[in-house]
């Protein structure tokens, strides 16, 4: 039996103090200890992206992260992206474009998209950026490459790319607007 280690972590704006077995992944700490089930356990081996969260502002895989190593850090899940003013623009875009079927991968897709859009805005290149030293334009090819770490077994990829494209360029229609049109 391992000795537990005290740590603190802020999840979606709420600070938690807990003691963890060092073997506990960040994903298991979120889901099993803190009952924050937004991030999903797909493969648990870093291959599917369903567990993606924003850790101190950057998208990471919570299944390949030891909770104890992230003592003192800030985690935002797809749930925590919403504010009192409403859903995050990326979440709104996923709703508007029907960018899912079963929804299991969606919280990870949304966190990954938020991270990917931020990385592109900061000028970080990708493998398909034509000029490594030039500007980054977040077109569909760039989005597909930057989102390649998130699998969708329903294969909603076409609409996911559309949602990220519109969210990135600030043109996504709000779900409330769509409902009004329906």
């Amino acid at each position: 039996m391992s000795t537990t280690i005290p740590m603190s972590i802020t999840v979606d704006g709420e600070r938690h103090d807990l003691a963890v077995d060092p073997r506990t992944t960040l994903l298991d700490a979120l889901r099993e200890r803190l009952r924050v089930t937004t991030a999903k356990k797909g493969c648990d081996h870093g291959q599917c992206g369903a567990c993606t969260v924003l850790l101190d502002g950057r998208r990471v895989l919570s299944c390949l992260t030891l909770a104890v190593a992230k003592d003192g850090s800030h985690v935002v899940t797809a749930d925590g992206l919403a504010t009192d003013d409403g859903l995050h623009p990326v979440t709104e875009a996923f709703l508007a474009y029907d960018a899912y079927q079963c929804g299991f991968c969606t919280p990870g897709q949304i966190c990954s998209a938020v991270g990917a859009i931020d990385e592109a805005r900061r000028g970080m290149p990708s493998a398909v950026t034509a000029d490594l030293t030039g500007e980054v334009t977040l077109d569909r090819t760039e989005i597909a490459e930057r989102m390649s770490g998130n699998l969708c077994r329903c294969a909603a990829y076409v609409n996911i790319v559309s949602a990220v494209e519109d969210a990135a360029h600030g043109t996504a229609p709000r779900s409330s607007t769509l409902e009004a049109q329906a």
Partner: protein
Amino acid sequence: MKPFTYARPAVASEAVTTLAADPDARFLAGGTNLLDHLKLGVVEPSQLVDVSRVTGTAIEELADGGLRIDAGVPNSDLAADARVRERYPAVAAAILAGASGQLRNMASTGGNLLQRTRCAYFADPTTPCTKRDLSQGCSARGGWARYHAVLGTAADGCIATHPSDLAVALVALDAQVQVLGPDGARTIPIGEFHRLPGDDPTRDTVLAHGDLVTAVDLPATTPAVRNSTYRKVRDRASYAFALVSAAVALEVADGTVVDVRIALGGVAHKPWRATTAEATLRGRPATDDEFRAAIAAELDAAAPVDSPLGGNAFKIPLVTGTVVSTLRALAGGAA
């Protein structure tokens, strides 16, 4: 997962001392490869020594015109650094060709060099693997050998390949690895850092227990290195390991090869510097025929593996095509 203890030393020297005192301890940095291996039972350490807060995260200019990359620099930050992109394009391109956005945010520079092979038999403790256990044979020989080595192998020995993209670019560029060990600091040329399997395939590098990678130094750039790139060939367009890859740097003047660097990934137990091809090409015309002859000379010693589940003889023409087209593109022609 077997229980282990966790230590978070305050400084690098303390991390080295802590690790050296425990023969079954492991360093933890980004954890992207280690966590997977802990879950699979590939490694069962007694203790994890977390170095993620003691290895630096800076990229600094060196007096000789090079760059020092602290071991804790995330892969994504290294690829995005404006100086790296401009002066060492093969380094940025190699990183961006690997893993996913999430993994590149997590993975460290030092850890990237120390990741283990993605051989499916190595990752599965229920199958024999001489890299996990010297007393066992190699399951890849006669098994699924599609991703395995064609160069630097020995009869019946381990045919695992090194999976790092970054390391291939660093080998082409003659980077230096800064190491802090129990006996102090030392510098290891990247070309001598990774090993061929020889009689001990369990060891990927020349590092001893307790050695901590603290930084990677890039030498001052050259006209060839400024004109460098990384090409990766894989089973899908993104988020897959290389079947073969090539980091290539080329300087051509008046149609003649002045300087050339070629390192290959996916073909050997370590990133493979194609010194024979380089020597063959220097001073020769920059033409497809010369490029083809040079890589053919390098591949003379190749020993593909035949297997009913899929061998790897296809890597010979694949390496040839990859290197020739990359050289052609760098020489100014169409890829």
